């Protein structure tokens, strides 16, 4: 039990992934060293997780990830006092709780449970969600720092024929993003006094490519039965570990270690749970204040999570079948941002679209995922304060239920523990699992 405590041993006796514990150390260090970096003269950049980390690293900036910061407060069970501070200040309980936790941090002298977080010299947001834009404005209100937005247009997947040339639109959108990246480079040069080094950028993208390749292999390992890791409990740990180290040798080393561990587990037949009876898909981010509790309620019934679209969605750059093209790095980088919404083919929604923009493709994609991961059902986790993640779930449930997919809808929040009701969640899980048991029984009987 090198990097794990007794408490981390899975409830049903299986050995949890050691690399999940390692991710904790990586994230902890990423915060703990921030102030030292500031004192050493490095510029502090707040950058959302899908932001251009590989590019910013070319300027020796120290990156702080606001969502990871709030998620960590929640996972350490310390988010509520921060959120309440923000509410006392005026923010609504209907605002994204990542934002209110972050505001609470600013109102608490930036004292984070993982260390003292320095204020930003620059904030960068992108178009993953519109809340990023508002969040950036909030950060600006507090710190009056320069702000840069990388805007990548969102397009709707359409079934009918387009009256305009979609490929041309894509190419134009790409040029729009490339030009913004050039503006960002100029701004970073001015701020840090460091000249942009294309070679260094290429090197970072190369690390990014290696990480993508490893990550794609890793997430495919859950197709194994039993799955060697739980997509929620372990998977989100891996995501945090890699997102804090995107485009670095450490990131590559970390994912190599994850892969090695998982290969060993597969050889030994070690699953995420001791006896895997049900395989489920988890849609959305976890309830961080009860990060372990919810998956463990499933584990107790022999159910484990084998996939979440956040594997792709929460890790820009990894989801493409194509890697960064090192011959045309900036363009390729811009494509990674646009492809986030389109997939490379604007006529087809990407598989990680959770009901946001894929039209009917979203239904087909969910059914494909069920088949690909040999899953027994889907758990939608509706996050109270995140409309982007949760807005499409009710509709997906309607459509997928008609296709005979067992669905469970759970409601809680990413960072606000007040929206988690243990009794209610437990009851729903129990009822859902009963349903799956019954289904299994009748299927087995029918097969005889």
């Amino acid at each position, binding site marked *: 039990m090198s990097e794990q405590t007794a408490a981390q041993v899975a409830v049903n006796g299986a050995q949890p992934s050691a690399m999940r514990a390692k991710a904790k150390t990586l994230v902890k260090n990423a915060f703990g060293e921030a102030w030292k970096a500031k004192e050493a003269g490095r510029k502090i950049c707040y950058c959302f997780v899908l932001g251009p980390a590989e590019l910013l690293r070319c300027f020796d900036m120290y990156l702080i990830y606001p969502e990871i910061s709030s998620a960590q407060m929640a996972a350490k069970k310390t988010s509520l006092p921060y959120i309440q501070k923000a509410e006392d200040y005026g923010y609504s309980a209907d605002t994204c709780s990542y934002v209110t936790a972050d505001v609470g941090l600013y109102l608490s002298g930036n004292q984070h449970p993982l260390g003292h977080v320095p204020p930003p010299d620059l904030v960068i947001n992108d178009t993953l969600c*519109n809340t990023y834009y*508002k969040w950036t404005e*909030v950060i600006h209100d507090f710190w009056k720092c320069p702000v840069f937005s990388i*805007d990548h247009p969102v397009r709707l997947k359409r*079934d009918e024929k387009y009256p305009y040339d979609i490929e041309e639109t894509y190419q134009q959108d790409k040029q729009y993003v490339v030009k913004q990246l050039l503006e960002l480079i100029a701004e970073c040069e001015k701020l840090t006094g460091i000249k942009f080094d294309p070679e260094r950028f290429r090197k970072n993208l190369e690390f990014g490519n290696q990480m993508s390749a490893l990550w794609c292999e890793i997430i495919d390992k859950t197709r194994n039965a039993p799955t060697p890791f739980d997509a929620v409990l372990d998977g989100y740990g891996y995501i945090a570990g890699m997102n804090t180290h995107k485009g670095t040798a450490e990131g590559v080393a970390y994912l190599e270690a994850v892969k090695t561990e998982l290969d060993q587990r597969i050889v030994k037949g070690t699953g995420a749970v001791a006896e895997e009876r049900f395989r489920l898909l988890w849609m959305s981010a976890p309830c961080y204040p009860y990060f372990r509790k919810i998956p463990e309620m499933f584990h107790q019934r022999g159910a484990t999570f084998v996939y979440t679209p956040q594997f792709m969605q929460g890790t820009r750059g990894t989801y493409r079948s194509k890697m960064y093209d090192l011959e045309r790095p900036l363009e390729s980088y811009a494509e990674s941002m646009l492809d986030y919404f389109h997939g490379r083919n604007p006529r087809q929604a990407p598989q990680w679209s959770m009901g946001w923009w894929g039209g009917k493709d979203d239904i087909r994609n969910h059914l494909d995922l069920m088949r690909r991961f040999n899953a027994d059902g889907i758990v939608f986790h509706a996050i109270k304060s995140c409309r982007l993640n949760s807005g499409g779930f009710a509709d997906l449930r309607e459509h997928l239920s008609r296709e005979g997919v067992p669905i469970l809808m759970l409601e809680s929040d990413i960072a606000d523990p007040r929206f988690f009701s243990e009794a209610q969640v437990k009851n729903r899980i129990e009822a859902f699992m009963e349903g799956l048991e019954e289904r299994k029984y009748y299927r087995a009987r029918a097969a005889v």
Partner: protein
Amino acid sequence: MATIDEIVQRCQDQVGDLAFGYVRDWKKRNPQGKVMGYFPVYFPAEIAHAGGILPVAILGGGNRIKLKQADAHMYSFMCSICKSTVELGLSGRLAFLDLFVGSPICDAARHMPNLMQRNVPGLTIDLLYYPGNLRTELAIPYLHREFNRIRQLLESVAGHAIDDEVIRRSVCLYNESRRLVREIYAIRRDSPWLILASECYLLVRAGTFMPVEEHIDLLREVLAQIPDRHARPIDKIRVVYEGAFCEQPPVEFIQALEEVCYVVDDDFLLGSRLIREDVPEDGDPLLNLACSYRDRSHCSSVQHDLRRLKSDDLLAKCRSAEAQAVILSPAKFCEPGLDDQVHHLKRFDREGIPSLQMEFQERMKDFDGVRTQTETFAEAIQFYAN
């Protein structure tokens, strides 16, 4: 000639008509005519108009619609306008539309067109994506291209080309309609007893579904009669209302406010008035519209432009309207509005200008609470003023 009261009443009936009777009649009168719907905040209606297409803002179902189907498809914590717009679609009330254009202005609005696409067969849907970064000059060529793409889309609906010259003529008409609306707002700032905020709201709202030519006539008719209105000033506080840039409060909500105070400026139906000056009438009309969106517009919670603070804009509005206070009232579950409420609140606190915070919902039906809250607020202001 109809009186202002009669015109306003007619507008109110049309606004409350969930069957979009006015638009259906227009279609009957113009059998070849096409109709496009757009979701707030803003759409360059000039381009549709130039194509002979009637642009109609789809502003939800107000407080008369029952959510019979939308609730099953939508997340509980979404704002009401998104839900009721989907209800309009699911219940077949938007069947008259030849095209619906949404804009991903917020996380909730990102879902809405997608939900419609999945569940409202036969409705053609597309997105108009506004630049998220207005600070950079790059926003203009981007938006110019985007408006061109929208032109192509509208051409496919109209079945013919929409050339620059025709758009320029439409720009002139819309400039005229915006000028007339600005005139009414100027009267409200000056003599708010002559035309009430709720009346002004209904008059402007009529322009979100009727052809601009007709709307211009309507506004001219009203403006001609305002000076002869028999109304006297009452001792009420003067406030500016902020928060209804997208979802609209029920008209009874506005009436409840103005029982207590004069609402001398606001952001109701902001999309209709987003462009605050005339759009240049010469040159490339789509480029002019793009530049106007970036550089001649009011602030809204869903435009991101840190060249200027939103609270600077609101403060200037209050000062030019000589308002004593501001009512900060976003729609329930409207995250962009809720976030800006705090931004404004802190600024107004620093400036020593009183603010009242409340939320509204388009579907609300009980306004006693609104009245009481506003009364208490107004009394406190009057007490300190005396």
